[in-house]
């Protein structure tokens, strides 16, 4: 903080008056006191001005901080919002997975049944080709074939609508992709703000050794993101795992 210069001429004048009155035996104590007060007031003025300056500075920085509401918005609104969005991503991906699996669970027995019926018909057909079928059996096969055609038609349209359902369920990829993109942008912004904060904190502290992340290995790493991990410590896939296990006698 810069000191406000003292009016030296005025102070000298007052000081000389004080010395003169001290030297004069007629000056009363009250008068002396008033001279001293007057000189003191120079200091008070100085203090007052300094205080004013400080107040202004504080006021300015508070105003500046208020204008930078983006930071508080980030903390109060955007981060909770991002959490909700990510929760939504989980919900959507789960829903899509369940939709697809429901169709598959429903469709697999249908396909199996049609396959089994086809095998039976094939056997009958082969018997027919070898002329081993009686007239009654032939009639019965005719009915079976007709029923099979009807059922095939129905089941195939069921399977097809199931495929369409699976197809439609993939729309989560687009939506979750967009949401995740938004969250990435938010993380970017937070990073920028944090960098600013570190800069403000001062160079000396910034030059200190960066705090190393806790390298305790018990922390589970989770899914490997392709192209992220370069360490030899991490298996690139099942083949690597198999090789490692083989080297351990598996």
């Amino acid at each position, binding site marked *: 903080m810069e000191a406000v210069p003292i009016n030296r001429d005025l102070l000298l004048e007052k000081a000389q008056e004080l010395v003169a009155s001290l030297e004069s035996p007629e000056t009363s104590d009250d008068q002396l006191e008033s001279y001293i007060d007057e000189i003191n007031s120079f200091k008070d003025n100085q203090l007052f001005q300094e205080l004013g300056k400080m107040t202004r500075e504080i006021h300015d920085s508070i105003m500046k901080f208020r204008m930078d509401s983006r930071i508080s918005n980030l903390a109060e609104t955007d981060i909770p919002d991002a959490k909700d969005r990510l929760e939504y991503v989980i919900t959507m991906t789960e829903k899509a997975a369940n939709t697809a699996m429901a169709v*598959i669970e429903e469709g697999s027995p249908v396909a199996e049944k049609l396959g089994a019926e086809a095998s039976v018909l094939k056997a009958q057909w082969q018997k027919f080709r070898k002329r081993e079928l009686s007239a009654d059996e032939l009639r019965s096969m005719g009915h079976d074939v007709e029923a099979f055609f009807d059922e095939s038609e129905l089941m195939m349209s069921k399977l097809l609508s199931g495929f369409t359902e699976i197809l439609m369920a993939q729309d989560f990829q687009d939506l979750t992709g967009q949401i995740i993109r938004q969250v990435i942008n938010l993380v970017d912004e937070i990073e920028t703000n944090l960098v600013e904060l570190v800069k403000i904190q001062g160079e000396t502290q910034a030059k200190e050794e960066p705090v190393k992340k806790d390298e305790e290995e018990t922390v589970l790493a989770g899914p490997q993101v392709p192209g992220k991990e370069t360490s030899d410590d*991490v298996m690139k896939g099942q083949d690597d*795992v198999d090789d*490692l296990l083989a080297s351990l006698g*598996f």
Partner: protein
Amino acid sequence: MKILIVDDFSTMRRIIKNLLRDLGFNNTEEADDGNTGLPKLQAGNFDFLVTDWNMPGMTGIDLLRAVRADDKLKTLPVLMVTAEAKKEQIVMAAQEGVNGYIVKPFTAQTLKEKIDKIFERIENA
């Protein structure tokens, strides 16, 4: 053949359940972590355990340890299906007595191979 599938994600349990069904294993049960899985193992006659590693509550590696420490369960074949791919963790699982280790994402073929291999080894032992 009765199989217990332990994973905290229901979709992953469902995938494994469907894959096992395709391989001819229809008798499966599910649990969402070791804490719910272990009592099931102790109560039912399971022949095989498929477990994830990273789960809230009791993790897969702790479940494996608990299984190996239990007199009635210690010979139960355990297949780990997990996203954890660090060398150290695979070695740890092997040391704790895992019978097979599959890293996610995995294929139906991998699951079949590993299960076949586990039973092959058990039969030859």
